[in-house]
């Protein structure tokens, strides 16, 4: 227990309070875990059994006793899943890179340079973050239509960047404020140019910040449905989220295959969460999102 917390003026003895607090924390954690885990379990259970086994006897059979990759095989053989998955990877990688680069540049500029309209720019960034993606969808559609860019990776990458950039810029802006300027000044005095200082000092120090920004923009881009639905119009350009939603309309594709594709969609975010969780927490702490 942290110093200064606890019993001053309370009715319960301190030891009892500590125990109650522990129990409350454990209960809450268990409750949250149950709510999060059960849907994931159902997804996995349906995905790895054949539909015949799952729906045997008229009820949904959720105890995994037979293991099969039939559902995945159907996805590979009868659908465009591989293409969808590749499309998703391409636009997600593009949007993540764009959004992070933009955030680092804008965040550094907003922190380190004084210019007219700086406050206005900063407010505009926050304001833009409050828009729902669907508000941007129609104007962006019109823009891409006029430019003849509809149904292209480039258009979707830009659209996804537009959704995530306000938040990532704001995140990096906050993060750079925690990087002491004396680090840079010390490098300048030692003869390093501004650009060199950026590479040698600023970027390495800001790494937890821009990794958080990258993770956020990855999540936005990977999970996006709206923009892909609006911008892409041909089957071979759909991302996996749009593609998977279309399965539900098809007679030949059942719940088993749908759950299998859902499982596939979950893999990249899961891997990122596992490998980068430390960075994620560090960066968001600074952004005030503990």
């Amino acid at each position, binding site marked *: 227990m942290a110093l200064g917390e606890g019993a001053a003026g309370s009715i319960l003895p301190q030891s009892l309070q500590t125990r109650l607090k522990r129990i409350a924390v454990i209960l809450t954690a268990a409750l949250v875990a149950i709510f999060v885990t059960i849907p994931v379990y159902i997804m996995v259970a349906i995905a790895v059994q054949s539909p015949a086994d799952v729906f045997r006897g008229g009820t949904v059979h959720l105890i995994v006793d037979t293991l099969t990759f039939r559902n995945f095989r159907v996805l590979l053989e009868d659908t465009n899943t591989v293409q969808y998955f590749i499309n998703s990877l391409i636009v997600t990688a593009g949007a993540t890179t764009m959004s992070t680069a933009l955030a680092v540049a804008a965040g550094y500029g907003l922190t380190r340079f004084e210019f007219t309209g700086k406050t206005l720019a900063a407010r505009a960034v926050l304001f833009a973050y409050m828009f729902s993606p669907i508000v941007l969808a129609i104007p962006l559609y019109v823009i891409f239509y006029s430019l003849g860019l509809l149904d292209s990776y480039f258009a979707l990458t830009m659209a996804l960047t537009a959704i995530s950039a306000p938040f990532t810029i704001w995140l990096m802006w906050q993060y750079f404020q925690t990087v*002491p300027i*004396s*680090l840079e*000044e*010390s*490098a*300048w*005095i*030692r*003869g*390093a*140019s501004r650009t*060199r200082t950026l590479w*040698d*000092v600023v970027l*390495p*120090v800001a*790494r937890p910040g821009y990794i958080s920004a990258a993770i956020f923009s990855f999540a936005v881009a990977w999970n996006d449905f709206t923009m892909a639905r609006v911008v892409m119009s041909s089957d071979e350009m759909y991302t996996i989220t749009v593609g998977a939603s279309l399965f539900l309309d098809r007679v030949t594709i059942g719940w088993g295959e749908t759950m299998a594709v859902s499982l596939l969609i979950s893999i990249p975010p899961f891997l990122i969460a596992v490998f980068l969780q430390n960075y994620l927490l560090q960066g968001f702490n600074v952004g005030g999102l503990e």
Partner: protein
Amino acid sequence: MARAIHLDSIRKEYRTAGSVHVAVDDLSLTIPEGSFTTLVGPSGCGKTTTLRMVAGLETPTSGEIAFGDEDVTDQAPQQRNCAMVFQSIALYPHMTVRQNIGYGLKVQGVPKAERDPKIDEAAETLQITEQLEKMPSELSGGQQQRVALGSAFVQDPDVLLLDEPMSDLDAKLKAELRVEVQRLHQELDATVLYVTHDQTEAMTMSDQVILLNEGRLEQFAPPGELFDYPVSDYVARFIGTPSTNLLPAVVGERDGAYALEGDGFAVSAPADIFADRVGESITVGVRPQYLSSEGGEYELTVVAEVVEQLGTEFVVHGHTPDGTAVDVVSTEFGGVEHGDELRVGFDPADLFVFDAEGQTLCHGDDLTKSPPQSH
């Protein structure tokens, strides 16, 4: 190679939303090459701003800065061959101690084979050889500051700037590092400019002290001169602990003899300085160390309020009967209690006399030059 630092009518203004704040005002001085000079003053007096202008991190609003014969006013910090140690230490958290110390050399394109011996030498001087492969976060505050000094050391700068490098360290480390900094000064061929708000550091380390008061130069002199011949009551109060006692007095005349008349004393004064000041309010300054329980030429009554023990000495904080605060330092006052009345003596040679604006009228030796006149 060490170079002299010339500041010529330096002025620095900060403009915020219509109001102008003058941080440094008309500062002109020359810091001799190779000297150890301390910029001292209370918080907000413009000393760090001055240092940052010398480093090139701030541009003066007007005025010129030159290193030796070279005008550096418009040079970027990269071009000036300065080294700077920051108050926040500013070690790169992602580099090892070795990389931190060697970064300046790396930027200048010195190959690794030449860098390493220099780094090792610096580390040895500063006793951080065993820390070379560690990360800065693994070091204690004192070690981190040594690393920062090491970075300055390997660069062989013309000008070494230190911005309150010890303000976050405890007293013991400060004492150790003071020696370290002075050794650095001896080994380097550099002009050292050291910023501090701690007058003890200023007095013990430097050849010259620059005392600033709200952006203006108050006095620029060697430490001893600052202590014995302050140009104003501001200097007298800032230098020395506890502060100089300031006793209000009036210039009086009796039968052609002049005297400084205060609460319980009348110090005879030379006519050449005070003849045309009869009736003026002045201030008599006397350091607490020069008030003696063994008496002196003149005496003063002090009512004790608080007694502090500093090792063998005692500091009595008290006031005169009319309420002027007076501190006395002596080894004799161990038994003094709250409310006791003490008689303390002082000699005119130890006094400073300031006019109503706080400027020095004369020092003690001027008071004793003329023979004491009969009362």
